């Protein structure tokens, strides 16, 4: 944020008659009041990390000095030690691999079906009329409430977890995709038609690339929801996985391990967001 004091325009700060003394009869000269600027946040390096460092450093200091009791908040260094131990013992991989597999398989299914359905809704009157109300009806359902149903349909093992994550990532992807497709400039479509491109070729060559920015920003939301549902599904029935690990730690009130699990989840979220940022920068270079 910019300093409001500094940005405040000097209103009517007149150049005094003395300073314009060499032209005695000329009218008072006022600098034009500056009223532009702002509304353009620029990246500031290191501030994000600084916030983390301050928060964690504060917690560390508080727990060491005794302001914060061990029951309120675990000491960050202990949480870190727990993480290191988790890694050394090989348990980290044992929990991460099934979790990541579930997240990747589930969200790949949800996103690919979501993008396809979103494009169809964006382009076809029939799909739009038929599916938009359905999507609106599905969107607000807390997907986790459907887990028992999915267990019956797809089995207690991986199937129900894939389905839950797929379903959870599907709805926001559909909404983001058809919104993005709606906004694709139709003059590009007419141009493609005027060069004899067929339907599928227009979808692939014009609609999808033009909708990609919108789809990618929808993906950020979809994947965050995917992570939440992953943990929820694992809490309700899994031997291995970050969710199971957190649940176990929570039921034992083992706050260090609980926080270690939470840190892993946050790291996963940051990684996903960073990865999408990288993809955006690579594939959206054409935007000004």
């Amino acid at each position, binding site marked *: 944020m910019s300093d409001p004091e500094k940005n405040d325009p000097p209103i009517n700060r007149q150049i005094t008659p003395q300073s314009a003394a060499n032209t005695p009869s000329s009218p008072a000269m006022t600098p034009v009041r500056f009223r532009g600027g702002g509304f353009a946040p620029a990246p500031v390096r290191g501030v994000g990390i600084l916030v983390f460092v301050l928060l964690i450093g504060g917690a560390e200091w508080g727990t060491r000095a005794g302001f914060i009791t061990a029951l309120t908040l675990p000491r960050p260094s202990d949480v870190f030690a727990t993480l290191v131990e988790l890694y050394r013992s090989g348990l980290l991989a044992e929990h991460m691999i099934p979790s990541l597999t579930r997240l990747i398989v589930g969200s790949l299914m949800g996103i690919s079906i979501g993008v396809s359905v979103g494009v169809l809704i964006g382009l076809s009157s029939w799909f739009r009329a038929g599916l938009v109300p359905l999507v609106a009806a599905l969107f607000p359902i807390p997907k986790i409430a459907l887990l028992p149903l999915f267990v019956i349909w797809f089995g207690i093992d991986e199937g129900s977890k894939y389905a839950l994550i797929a379903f959870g990532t599907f709805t926001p992807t559909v909404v983001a995709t058809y919104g993005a497709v709606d906004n694709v400039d139709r*003059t*590009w479509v*007419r*141009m*493609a*038609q*005027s*060069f*004899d*491109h*067929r339907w599928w*070729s227009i979808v692939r*060559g*014009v609609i999808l*690339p*033009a909708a990609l920015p919108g789809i990618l920003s929808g993906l950020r939301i979809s994947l965050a929801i995917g992570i939440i549902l992953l943990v929820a599904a694992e809490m309700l029935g899994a031997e291995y996985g970050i969710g199971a690990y957190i649940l176990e730690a929570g039921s034992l009130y083992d706050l260090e391990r609980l926080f270690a699990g939470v840190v892993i989840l946050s790291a996963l979220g940051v990684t996903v967001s960073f990865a999408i940022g990288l993809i955006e920068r690579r594939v959206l*270079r*054409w*935007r*000004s």
Partner: protein
Amino acid sequence: MDLRLDGIHHSYGSTEVLSGISLDIPAGQIVCLVGPSGCGKSTLLRFVGGLEQPTGGAVLQVGTPPAGCLNPLTYVFQDFALLPWRSVRGNIAFALAPHRLPRAEEEAIITDVLARTKLSDFADALPKQISGGMKQRVAIARALAVRPAVMLMDEPLSALDSQTRELLMDDLVTLWTRAPFTAVYVTHNLSEAVRLGHKIVVLSRRPGKIREVVDIDTPLSERRHGDPALEAAEARLWGLMRDEAAAADAELLHV
């Protein structure tokens, strides 16, 4: 290949936009369409290229397109319609893609049209990196690449500043002199029309009817600024247009 517009009528809902347009577009000539704003010029052009269908009448091709012609009716759009995620070369390749030419032939065509539009050095630039005038040259290169029988140009120079417009008009004249093409050229700008048109069709205000067809016999390459014949033609066109434009303007106020 000539084109014939045969009694074209069109209404959007209850608004009649075009009424009884019959016109021949002979091969090798540039036909300019001028008329007040909203009289249906763009709509007519969409009918000519088959992007939309009139409620009455038909657009007919007379004869067959010349051999080697890939996309007989090819548009050049006012806002360029370049795909921003494709390079200059990629945009031209996009127009050629439906024809599935052998790789080498496609490359040869692209190299040729880039050279003809003086864009060879910018083949790999993205649209955001080049100026408006260059963007329209890319759009023209793209249109030339598919070897059109008729070019359909909807105010191709309107989005450009007047200096760039002059330069591009020269380019179009050079292109036409080297290899005469057929074109339907919609414009608001009468000096553009007298500079490029062999035949200038004046449309009345909505519903658009053909008010008059003005032929200009001076060869394109000999048309200069200040040529009295051209100035007379322009003055005559302006006389025809002024009443229509004023009436159209007044109508808009009453809506």
